[in-house]
């Protein structure tokens, strides 16, 4: 059997007409499912629902004035100018129109009235109402703010969304010195990008090592040495005391000029970029009376405590999906992979199927020529095995708990990453004793536990 369709790619097309024309006094028709949050998880939820044959009308609502786009490139390719914003758009307008999805941009939901059956009305800050039969919260997380003197100066920036990235890009040209606060993924990715763009970049990390809890000690040390050898000035156990200013910005705001450290040192900075983690957006869930604890508490089927609202992605606190994890263990994951997999679980849930999320979480971070890929979660490891191939710039750490591999950090080593990810997915093991020789492909020593 063969079907045939000719389509026109729609790059550059304008906003979907479906969302235009509504005025604050109008109330749109009741949508089948209102998805609040139009980023990775919200988009995936809509796409997965249509793939599963969900026929109700869907409204995908976001508070940004952009069509839904992918975020990971913002700190990397987009900042460096090697990809254009159009490349980051998830789906063409035609796709949404053909799939009966209304895309609503630039509406910020401030209050939701909800009935026991799961239906209700969401109210936006502009006075619009969005009645729904079912509700999905894919509201993500927001950048954690650094509340110190000078934090409101012009040029003190965060990097969470496209507008942040555009604001950063707009001032990069005039800046010579950049101070990045926070040695996590976002901070290091942006620092690498800005260094590549010719800026003098200093990274301040409050903790004693880079990348916090996301990777183990060996990987953190590897990144520290790798970045320093590439000329990045990284200062550990260092924090900013205040931001200094001189002169006035065009709009009357004073512009940042430097960062004063606790020891009195002042680093010049025309840009300060802060990447010190995120806070899940739980305000709407709290207003709805849903259980909230480091995110919106959901069950294995992505249902919140009211039994009808689904919450997925960065904003959700869910049972740990890793096979074999401790009963009752809960986790909130900030990753593209989780946004996608969790959305699929929610899509099943909304179509009446009960499918648990039992995937292997994975993460990636590209920094300069370092490609980090992480498979699994390393919490609770009792042994690590290092695989180093300095000649080829490859480095991996495998994490074990009671002799069973549970995770791996792999730098420029996709084969190691893939081998461990596949082994975890199949419940297999990569015996520690044989894994240390970097010349041995992990795939060849993988065993059935």
């Amino acid at each position, binding site marked *: *059997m*063969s*079907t*045939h*369709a*000719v*389509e*026109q*790619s*729609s*790059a550059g097309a304008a906003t979907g007409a479906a969302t235009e024309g509504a005025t604050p006094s109008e109330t749109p028709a009741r949508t089948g499912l209102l998805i609040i949050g139009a980023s990775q998880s919200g988009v995936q939820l809509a*796409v997965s629902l249509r*793939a599963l044959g969900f026929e109700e009308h869907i409204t995908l609502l976001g508070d940004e004035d952009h069509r839904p786009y*992918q975020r*990971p*490139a913002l700190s*990397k*390719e987009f900042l460096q100018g090697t*990809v254009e914003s159009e*490349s*980051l*758009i*998830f*789906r*063409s307008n*035609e*796709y949404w129109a053909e*799939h009966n999805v209304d895309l609503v941009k630039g509406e910020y939901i401030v209050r939701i009235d909800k009935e026991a059956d799961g239906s209700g009305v969401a109210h936006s800050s502009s006075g619009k109402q969005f009645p729904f039969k079912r509700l999905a919260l894919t509201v993500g997380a927001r950048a954690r703010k650094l509340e110190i003197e000078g934090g409101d100066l012009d040029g003190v920036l965060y990097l969470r969304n496209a507008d942040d990235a555009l604001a950063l890009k707009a001032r990069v040209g005039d800046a010579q010195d950049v101070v990045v606060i926070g040695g996590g993924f976002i901070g290091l990715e942006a620092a690498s990008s800005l260094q590549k763009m010719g800026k003098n970049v200093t990274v301040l990390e409050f903790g004693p090592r880079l990348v916090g809890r996301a990777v183990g000690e060996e990987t953190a040390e590897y990144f520290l040495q790798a970045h320093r050898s590439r000329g990045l000035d990284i200062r550990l156990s260092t924090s900013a005391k205040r931001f200094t200013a001189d002169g006035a910005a065009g709009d009357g705001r004073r512009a940042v000029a430097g960062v004063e450290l606790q020891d009195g040192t002042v680093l010049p900075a025309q840009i300060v970029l802060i990447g010190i983690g995120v806070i899940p957006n739980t305000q709407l869930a709290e207003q709805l009376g849903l259980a909230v604890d480091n995110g919106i508490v959901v069950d294995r089927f992505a249902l919140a405590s009211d039994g009808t609202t689904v919450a997925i992605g960065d904003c959700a606190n869910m049972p740990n999906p890793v096979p074999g994890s401790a009963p009752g263990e809960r986790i909130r994951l900030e990753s*593209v*992979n989780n946004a*996608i997999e969790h959305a699929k679980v929610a899509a099943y849930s909304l179509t009446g199927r009960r499918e648990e999320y039992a995937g292997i979480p*994975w993460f*990636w971070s*590209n920094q300069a020529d370092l*490609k980090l*890929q992480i498979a699994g979660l390393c919490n609770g490891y009792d042994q690590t095995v290092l695989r180093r191939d300095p000649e080829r710039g490859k480095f991996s750490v495998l994490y074990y708990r009671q002799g069973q591999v549970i995770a791996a950090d792999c730098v*420029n080593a*996709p*084969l190691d*990453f*893939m*081998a461990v*990810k*596949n082994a975890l997915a199949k419940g297999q093991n990569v015996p520690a004793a044989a894994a240390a020789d970097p010349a041995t492909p992990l*795939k060849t020593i993988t065993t059935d536990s």
Partner: protein
Amino acid sequence: MPTVHFTDAEGAVRDVQGNAGDSVMETAVRNGVPGIVAECGGSLSCATCHVFVREDCLSQLPPMEDMEDEMLYGTAVDREDNSRLSCQLRLSDDIELFVTTPETQV
């Protein structure tokens, strides 16, 4: 205008017109071609945009770099001699590509 003909594992074909400079992966994702997942958005990290390229089209494509080669060993459906990651395949003005998507990408 560049055209990509996507055939899925069951033989259904979709012809998608793309833009020069875009990758085959971007063209697929924007139009919702189901056989392409592209979790990492084209940063060569996930191997979920695997395609089989029709043999006579291979010569039109850029050579494979080491990283793509290694990532291809991690695809959900085993690689073949004509396997590529579609995020690495850029469209040019006159290109006409025939690719088949695997049964699954994850």
